[in-house]
């Protein structure tokens, strides 16, 4: 069917490779969101403050990370290159299960690979707070992260993010729009894993809010992802957090000061 070929070709021109400054470490894909140099990718792809971008025509450019939202797994980057071919965002709120979708990305370092399938479902993922995700019956590989997921009109309706039980998981395009409009939501700056009594801290970002409150790797926060997510979105500057450290009979408390919200400096 010629439709897929045309859509794939247009998406390829708006899909970039996003890597760390060390060119041997290829980490993922990104989407040209507007023609004056705004690139969207996953927060887990853009880990540093400066990244390397390779455009579809082979040009390599330095990118500055403008904003990161680790909870929504989104990051925005800016490159100094005018006149880029940007994608057309679609309305992810209107998606229906069964619609055809097409993913473009750089899986396993292979640039511009295309895979197609259908929307599997749209909704929350168990244990990952209440936000909505798109699940797609498309074959993805690690380098697809940050790349576009488009509908049959070629509009980008999601950013490919993860593979869960074989299904592609994407951030809905409406969440991207909200992220660009409102900036990143506050986060603790930790990696968490659910355990029987709460959430175990697997890692602490050196400059994050949790590190400043002396939370450490191995501490177990009491409560669920949903509770934590609600607390972070409550608008308070300081959050009291209860946790265990080693001894599970003693509940400790930390006061985490969330960073003041910085509006995305376009």
């Amino acid at each position: 069917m010629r439709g897929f070929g045309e859509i794939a070709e247009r998406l390829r021109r708006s899909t970039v490779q996003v890597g760390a400054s060390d060119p041997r470490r290829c980490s993922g894909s990104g989407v040209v969101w507007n023609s004056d140099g705004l690139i969207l990718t996953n927060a887990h792809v853009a880990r540093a403050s400066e990244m390397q971008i390779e455009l579809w025509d082979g040009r390599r450019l330095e990118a500055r990370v403008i904003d990161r939202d680790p909870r929504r797994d989104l990051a925005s980057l800016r490159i100094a290159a005018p006149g880029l071919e940007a994608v057309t965002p679609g309305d992810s709120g209107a998606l229906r299960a069964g619609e055809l979708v097409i993913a473009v990305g750089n899986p396993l370092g292979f640039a511009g690979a295309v895979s197609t399938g259908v929307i599997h479902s749209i909704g929350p993922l168990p244990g990952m707070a209440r936000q909505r995700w798109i699940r797609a019956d498309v074959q993805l590989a690690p380098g697809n992260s940050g790349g576009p997921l488009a509908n049959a009109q070629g509009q980008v309706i999601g950013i490919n993010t993860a593979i869960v039980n074989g299904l592609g998981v994407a951030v809905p395009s409406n969440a991207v729009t909200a992220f660009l409009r409102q900036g990143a939501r506050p986060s603790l700056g930790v990696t968490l894993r659910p355990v029987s009594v709460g959430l175990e801290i697997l890692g602490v970002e050196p400059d994050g809010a949790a590190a400043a409150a002396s939370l450490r790797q191995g501490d177990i926060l009491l409560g669920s992802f949903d509770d934590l997510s609600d607390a972070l979105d409550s608008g308070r500057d300081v959050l009291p957090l209860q946790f265990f450290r080693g001894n599970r009979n003693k509940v400790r408390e930390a006061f985490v000061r969330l960073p003041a919200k910085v509006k995305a400096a376009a």
Partner: protein
Amino acid sequence: MANELAALSNELAAAVEQAGRSVVAVHARPRFSSSGVFWREGVIVTAQHTIRREEEITVTLPDGANAPATLAGSDPGTDVAVLKVESAGPAAAARACAPPAPGNLALTIGRSEDSGVNATMGIVSAVSGSWRTWRGGRLDHYIRLDLTLYPGSSGGVVVSTAGEVIGIATSALSRIAGVAIPATTIDRVADEILARGRVSRGYLGVGLQPVELPDHHKGLIVLSLAPDGPAAKAGVLIGDILVSLGGSAVDDTDDIQGVLELHPVGQRVEAVVLRGGVSRDIAIVVGERPRGN
């Protein structure tokens, strides 16, 4: 330009929406729910292998509400289980009037409590006539699916792009692919389960092994006999060679299953055995296979 593609996309989404109105999530095992389909008023069918408990089964209905369900019965042979619920459910969806052809697009539609209806798409990769499963049941058609069945897809409805029901999906009947249990098979099994609570399978109570006979014929030698089983009661002895059952020659154990399907439990079936080189006619009353066997 891409209008053809957009039209197909809309057709697929419409098929999912329509068929999804009769698809439920079934909670009868740990971790992953499975899917099920309203087959008749108040009757849901699902894949038997996803039912891991007989009590406290619940279903998530198309409107999102949870409701208790009772297990009316199940047939491991065809991997069909039948549940009953208070809710009547929607009117039955249109059936495909003929089995699909290889290469036809097919959708499997399931449901989960968290994110509602879900869909996967692929093609029908092979279709054949009547097929015996490794579990011993018989499907009216073998319909192999070239699509991904994710955890929770089993028991979901398999439809054409026009939304016509082909059957329900199961990952348990083939090691290499998903299979659609045909709608006609589900009708037959559901009828029997609703009438009798189970699917009874004919039973002779013999252990058989194919053997070559001197005149290039084949037969099945009796290696074991269930004590007081139907064959033992009729006078069959160990060492007899079964050459015909119900009037048709038998040279494989599959032939026996085929004959038994035509002879309900309690009916007499004529057997011909060779004993000491002499042919004898023996009438065996078909028994019911003991449960869990």
